[in-house]
């Protein structure tokens, strides 16, 4: 039920074999006894009437949602037979597995694909990897951790530290920093809770973060606010950046971002002049067509101002720990150039694959290949814990692809939005019904206990992949189906079995020390995960001017690419569509397209909403709470207007992921897509993809009127 930052320690209260309560585990260094509202609503999730308890086989037409119950063994036999048949007929690459958010079972999906011979892990194209890629090939590391604890200036930029990993320490550290006097600046179009607590809110127009970053570079370069020594010693191509950024003046950015020139200049000066200043760059940088530009611009900004790997800045050195490495179940050592060549729709260019998580095709492009046949059609898709009709762009096109797809398997703990198109539906166990895997969070390791019995003929995600592999003849690579052996393999470096780990009820906390900072010769020579193992940074320096990108045919310096529709780039649309629309991906009670059927959570946010400035609403005769139609050049949806004084008056903001009803509260679902924000966005191949990292935009122009 969590997003990718799962892994909190939880005490489950069980009475008569039933889960009746949840408490945070104080012994867990991950969440220190605290939890989020989703966890407290676990009982309603576990016992939801929507739980899937038996495998299902489709009997009606695709999309009708008529199924018959079959057994686990029958279902797995059917999948194995079909996948083997497709492999023989079309080659192993005809199978794609669509990625859920990063999960503890993600590497099992990679392992299965590698053994099968397919490179097509269908990664979202809208989360994390986009940022990681730009950072890695600019700074030599895919991650830069903001050092809140020592910062004097904290910039939260298109991130939401409140609704992601709420109890896991970063938010607490940010609040503590603020209390001791650090300045908090939050850059985002609406005043979410982090912006409400900030010293300065920078209400930027959606999708224009890259323009702001370029203008900040302009100020830093022209006012010579950079760290000359660091630039000389550790940056490659700074002299090319100087003429490049001249056109990106604060005045230029002001019209694009909708911010006062003084605010842009002031922010650049304050950041450059505060030695202990850090940036938390968030998901806004992944869901924009300018993604790779924006990420590179911010990375260069961090570097040339001397904020990399210094106290209070962005830390790239790893903290040494006494904890041994958990052995990965991924089989990345088996990747070949041939597999990379066979990617159906590479998420990042082939010459940069595999990347940190493995090889990947973009989620949307896997589906699109079914319709275009280019370069070949995907024939079989398994969707574990992911809902393609809800959570990627172009839902109508996705449905077309699912109608045409040869073989589609959906796996979930409960009925989901993609199910009606599935040939087979595989129910899986929740974490409360499993004694595996084990939790690994930072330097904490804990065995998970099964606290309630399973309620039907289903197993865990992990067991599914092992069971299927055995049936496919891949058993030798999957511990011959033994989950115990699989777990013990992963703990190989710890000198203990899972059963032995279980004798530490709240797990083991290993010691870690703060990292020693500033060993740039080592940091900037880090090897990339490409087959060649070549370093990320060919010059051993920050790639201000990026020769790797130039060699692959991309711009060596970060430029600017506007959203497909925006006030500055498509003013001709403004008479009909005068407002900017964007959405959030996660809220305080939901993540992505999940959890709308959990009554305690749905009661907090019962209806699809759109935040609108009261002046903007009144000008349209819209009252607080009215149902409205939101229409873009690409589609229309409905939502309830919420008067929101803390949003740009030229912008409205919704929430992704509405489709599910909540029977207990008598609240409707919107399975017809009538509240799916993805219907509003462009999927134009020429405009809606970042050419380097496939990032797909979530910005467009709309009009809002009473329903």
């Amino acid at each position, binding site marked *: 039920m969590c997003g990718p930052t799962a892994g909190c320690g939880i005490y489950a209260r069980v009475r008569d074999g039933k889960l009746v*309560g*949840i*408490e*945070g585990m104080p012994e867990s260094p991950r*969440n220190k*006894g*605290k*939890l*989020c*509202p989703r966890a*407290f*609503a676990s*009982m309603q999730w576990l016992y939801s009437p929507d739980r899937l308890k038996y495998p299902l086989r489709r009997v009606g037409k695709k999309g009708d949602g008529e199924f018959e119950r079959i057994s686990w063994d029958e279902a797995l036999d059917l999948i194995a037979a079909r996948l083997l048949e497709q492999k023989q007929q079309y080659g192993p690459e005809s199978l794609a597995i669509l990625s859920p958010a990063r999960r503890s079972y993600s590497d099992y999906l990679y392992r299965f694909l590698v053994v099968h011979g397919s490179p097509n892990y269908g990664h979202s194209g809208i989360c994390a990897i986009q940022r990681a890629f730009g950072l890695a090939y600019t700074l030599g590391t895919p991650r830069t951790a903001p050092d809140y604890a020592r910062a004097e200036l904290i910039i939260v930029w298109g991130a939401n530290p*409140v*609704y992601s990993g*709420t*109890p896991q320490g970063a*938010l*607490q550290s940010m*609040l503590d920093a*603020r*209390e001791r006097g650090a300045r908090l600046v939050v850059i985002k179009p609406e*005043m979410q*809770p*982090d*912006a*409400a*607590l900030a010293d300065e*809110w920078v*209400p930027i127009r959606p999708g224009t973060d890259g323009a702001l970053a370029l203008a900040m570079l302009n100020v830093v370069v022209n006012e010579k606010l950079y760290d000359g020594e660091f630039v000389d010693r550790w940056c490659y191509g700074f002299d090319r950046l100087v003429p490049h950024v001249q056109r990106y003046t604060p005045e230029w950015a002001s019209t694009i971002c909708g911010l006062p020139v003084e605010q842009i200049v002031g922010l650049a000066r304050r950041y450059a002049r505060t030695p202990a200043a850090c940036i938390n760059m968030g998901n806004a940088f992944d869901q924009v067509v300018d993604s790779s530009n924006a990420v590179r611009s911010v990375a260069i900004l961090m570097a040339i101002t001397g904020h990399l790997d210094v106290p209070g800045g962005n830390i790239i050195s790893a903290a040494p720990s006494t904890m041994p490495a958990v052995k990965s179940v991924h089989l990345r050592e088996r990747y070949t150039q041939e597999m990379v060549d066979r990617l159906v729709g590479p998420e990042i260019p082939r010459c940069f694959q595999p990347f940190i998580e493995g090889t990947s095709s973009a989620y949307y492009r896997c589906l699109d290949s079914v319709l275009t046949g280019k370069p070949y059609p995907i024939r079989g898709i398994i969707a574990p814990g992911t809902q393609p009709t809800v959570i990627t762009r172009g839902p109508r096109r996705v449905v077309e692809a699912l109608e045409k797809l040869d073989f589609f398997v959906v796996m979930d703990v409960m009925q989901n939005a993609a199910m009606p198109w599935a040939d087979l539906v595989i129910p899986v166990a929740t974490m409360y019904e499993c004694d595996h895997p084990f939790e690994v969070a930072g330097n904490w390791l804990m065995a998970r206990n099964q606290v309630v019995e399973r309620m039907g003929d289903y197993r865990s995600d992990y067991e599914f992949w092992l069971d299927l592999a055995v049936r496919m003849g891949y058993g030798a690579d999957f511990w011959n189906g033994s989950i115990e052996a699989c777990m013990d393999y992963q703990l190989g470096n710890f000198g203990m079995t899972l059963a032995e780990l279980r004798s530490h009820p709240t797990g083991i906390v290993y010691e870690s020390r703060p990292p020693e900072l500033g060993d740039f010769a080592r940091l900037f020579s880090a090897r990339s995960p490409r087959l060649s193992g070549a370093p990320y940074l060919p010059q051993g320096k920050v790639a201000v001017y990026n020769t790797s990108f130039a060699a692959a045919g991309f711009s060596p310096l970060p430029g600017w690419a506007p959203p497909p529709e925006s006030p500055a780039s498509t003013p001709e649309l403004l008479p009909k569509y005068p407002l900017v629309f964007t959405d959030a991906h996660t809220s*305080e*009670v939901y993540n992505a397209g999940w959890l709308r059927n959990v*009554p*305690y*959570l*749905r*009661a*907090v946010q019962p209806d699809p909403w759109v935040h609108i*400035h009261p002046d903007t609403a009144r000008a349209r005769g819209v009252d607080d709470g009215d149902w409205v139609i939101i229409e873009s050049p690409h589609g229309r949806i409905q939502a309830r207007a919420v008067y929101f*004084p*803390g*949003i*740009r*008056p030229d912008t409205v903001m919704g929430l992704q992921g509405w489709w599910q009803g909540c029977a*207990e*509260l008598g609240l409707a679902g919107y399975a017809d897509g009538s509240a799916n924000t993805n219907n509003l966005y462009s999927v134009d191949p020429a405009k809606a993809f970042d050419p380097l990292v496939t990032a797909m935009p979530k910005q467009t122009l709309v009009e809002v009127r009473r329903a």
Partner: protein
Amino acid sequence: MTKGQRGFLFDAGRCVLCHACEVACQAAHGLSPQMQWRKVVEVWEGHFPAVTRTFVSISCLHCAHPPCQRACPSGAISKRTENGVVVVDGQLCTGCRECYEACPRRVPQFGADGVMGKCDLCLDRAAPACAAACPTAALRSGTMAELADLARKRGGKRLAGAEGPALFVCGPQIPVELMRLP
């Protein structure tokens, strides 16, 4: 003030509207989703872009002189002598809603059976579920002496009011008339 009176401290400088306190309360008491013995409300002031947004987590404040108790015609509401917790006897409550009218914070809630329900400071638990759940320590519980000490350190003070609410507040000031449920 009742000796040993228990209550809450709320720091508006740390509340992030995560709703953990609300749902932890509902789950701990097995409430229906529509019943909220604790709720976080927001207060907007100013005009874009000079706008402020502040969150307040509100529940029964176990007043020293509970207006609800005075208003109740059937004697269903009482104040415990050992800890000052204001409790309702469901057997005596007639669902007349006089308590709701009397409460400055509109705290009393009425379920399908018409009986009033509200925060009982989790008398059956070691500590109130809401404060135990709060991931930012914006909401804390304890005796008034403990909370007074903490409030002093954090620059806060006891909420004013003739009814004597058992609440200390820190952080951005919220107009007292806005500290109530919608």
